[in-house]
């Protein structure tokens, strides 16, 4: 068993376990911490897939930005400490059945799919390549994304501003 295989299964276990933690946890902060586990594991999986740039971006933006935002949101919106909003039993029941069926179906499909094996390609310099693609082929989506970010910035600021006094 090579190091890569070992690393993959360790990380997959971490990612899956954390995701399961997200499912089980009722405390919202713990859910966020479990999400951190998944995000980190996925970032490391990106390293395994030789998508280095993506991995660090996942860490910067997701773990370092989005997740902090989420935790921040939790702190602002949860007044009672450790407030627990338990899922309704019926929903949980149906949800479990649906999700299990979906997972079983997906796995069955994936295992039977006739992937023709292609030798994994090693990008020579992924950062430079990504940069050139972003500013070449994907220029329009790139610019659109920046416009979207601007809109989001304004929108979020507008939404979150304190209500005006009458």
């Amino acid at each position: 068993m090579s190091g890569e295989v070992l690393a993959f299964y360790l990380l997959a276990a971490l990612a899956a376990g954390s995701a399961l933690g997200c499912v089980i946890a009722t405390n919202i902060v713990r859910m966020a911490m479990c999400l951190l586990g998944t995000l980190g594991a996925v970032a490391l999986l990106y390293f395994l897939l030789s998508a280095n740039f993506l991995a660090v971006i996942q860490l910067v933006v997701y773990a370092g930005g989005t997740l902090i935002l989420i935790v921040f949101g939790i702190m602002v919106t949860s007044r009672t400490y450790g407030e627990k909003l338990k899922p309704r039993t019926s929903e949980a029941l149906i949800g479990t059945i649906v999700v299990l069926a979906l997972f079983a179906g997906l796995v069955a499909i994936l295992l039977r799919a006739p992937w023709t094996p292609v030798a994994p390609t090693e990008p020579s310099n992924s950062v430079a390549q990504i940069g050139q693609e972003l500013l070449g082929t994907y220029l329009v989506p790139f610019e659109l994304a920046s416009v979207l970010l601007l809109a989001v910035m304004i929108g979020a600021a507008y939404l979150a501003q304190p209500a005006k006094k009458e």
Partner: protein
Amino acid sequence: MSTIELLLVTGVLLPLASFVLLAFVGSKLGKPASGWVAVLAMAASCVLAAVALMQWQGLDAAGRAAARSAPVLWATLGGMPIKFGVNLDSLTLIMFFMVTFVSTWIFVFSVGYMAGHSDEIDGVSKFHRFFTYLSLFGFSMLLLVIADSLLLLFIAWELVGVCSYLLIGYYFHKKSASDAGIKAFVTNRVGDFGFIIGLGMVVLFLGDLSLAGAAERFHHEFTAGGPLFSRTFCGLSLATWMGMLLFCGAIGKSAQFPLHVWLPDAMEGPTPVSALIHAATMVAAGVYLTARIFVLLTPEAQQFVAIIGCITLTLAALVAIVQTDIKKVLAYSTISQLGYMMLAMGVGAWIAALFHLLAHAFFKALMFLGSGQVIEGCHHEQDIRKMGGLIRKMPVTGLTFLVGVLAIAGAGIPALWMPNHMKLGLGGYFSKDEILAVAWHRVYGENHGENEVAAGAEIQNPKSKIENATVGTPPPEPRPLSPLLFWIPVLMAYVTPFYMMRCWWLTFMGKPRDRHVHEHAHESPLMYVPLVVLALGTFVSSYYLFRPLVAAAAPHPFLTASYDGAAAEAAEAHATMISHGAHAALATRVGLAFVVGFVLAWLIYRKGLAVGEKLAAALKPVYTVLVHKFYFDELYGLVLIGGTMALNAVSYAFDKFVVDGLVNLAAFVTERLSWFSGMIVDQGVVDGAVNGVGRGTWSLGGLVRSPQVGRIRNYILFAATGVAVVVVWIAFV
């Protein structure tokens, strides 16, 4: 993109920029500044339009064709390309210039007017909001003017509708204002409903939404005898229906006969809005639309247009006689004049209709602004019965208003005796004269065979074109119209000067009837400068400047013999008309109508209201009907609201007994089932499991009964279930 197109597009985008700026930082800019931003943008647009117009004038036919660049492909819908571009022709340019010019001066007026009118809501001045909306309106209207595709035109069409709604309801804390806004919007929806169906027919049968492309396909359909012409519905060909449905949009927007009720109520909006949107530009958009789809109108559809126009102009003119609110008088006169334009379109006087539109824009904006000045000066008093003698307090307003009155009355001297066919008169004189001349020609022309001078050579041209274009099929002969379509407008041409003079006299002349109002009357320079400019514009927007430009853009319709050629000849050979009895009679009868109307008004109202009231008492039944505006609002209220209520009752009953019954039944059955299964399982298994299953089943029943409770999670669950079913199906079945 050619220079001219670039100029126009920039001109369209400037008000948009102003809108965006004001929308975001308008409240920071504060009271006068935000208004001046809008004025600046519009003035810049106007300058650009003037430059474009001058460049256009300098081009020959080939240059004009070259200046028009290919439209840009925007999207492809089901194989149909959606292209947007600039519809570059003389009409676009002159309309563009007119809209920007009138808007600029109305914006300037607004800065003065709104300074005293914009209330504060929640401690925030709404001043900037007004100019935000105005800028958006300017953008939408200009977009409408340059649109080269029915789709783009429709987008702009809806945008101006929204702006109109916002601006009518500008004083939204006033119930009547917000009601009026809703009324205008809903009424327009009725018209737009027809418009949308018409658009659908265009897509279906012509498969091209660009104006030029649709016209070409239409022609092709006609020559090929496609389904549009071969199939009929209720005795009219589908082509006719298509034209009539497209015209429905214009009926709504231009406040034509069945849907005219919104425009008088729209006077709840601030007066500059009435001047700009509900008199000069937006309502004229209906006429503009008709002009643009003119080539798609069959003779029957044209007749429909003419009839609608005729009814409208009659009703509105009659109602205007008894109105006492200065703005309402103007509103009804606007409807009446729009009716004239539609009539002109219907009888084929394409050029005359648009010429009247342009002239009307100037003098109607002028009069509305004048009324705004009066209202502002008299502390929001709008009743002309309480005014009088204001000419001494507001000389500039009174005189410029008089210019407008003269223009709308068609005042001019049929100076037939002058050399070189010299004509004297304001824009309204020529345009109205031309409309009536064409109508006369359509009614009597062919029958009397008197068109050898007037129409002779010109009329052959379109006909020969038709013959060239239609292989095998003989061109449809234009049918003579009903004489009513000539005589009623002529009669109303006498009524128009009467009610306008009545309004002016009661407002400005005679003795002051309300001392309180009279004492406070004043005028401010920021407001009368636009008045003077527009009055000058009324003089200038005459025959010589506008008509050639409009004429240059006239289309060559395939199905209808355009009588513009005839009209052009008739107008240009005005002097020679004297040699023909009928023409001479027309010229004197209509041309001097304003004198009759003015004198009549002066006779009745020179001593105040007394004579008028006596007349009203004598003609009480007629007066009552007119005061109640022919009971249209009441009728609509009865039919629409009653109908809606009845429909509500029916749907409520259906909902209550059928839908609820079914749902309750399902829930009941499910609940029973769950209880039943709970009982059966209970006997074998542990209690907890039983309860779990029972509860699960019950909540399943709950899910069946109420799948729409606003829980997004459940929606996701439904979606997920669907996906899961599909995935499991693919995987295992």
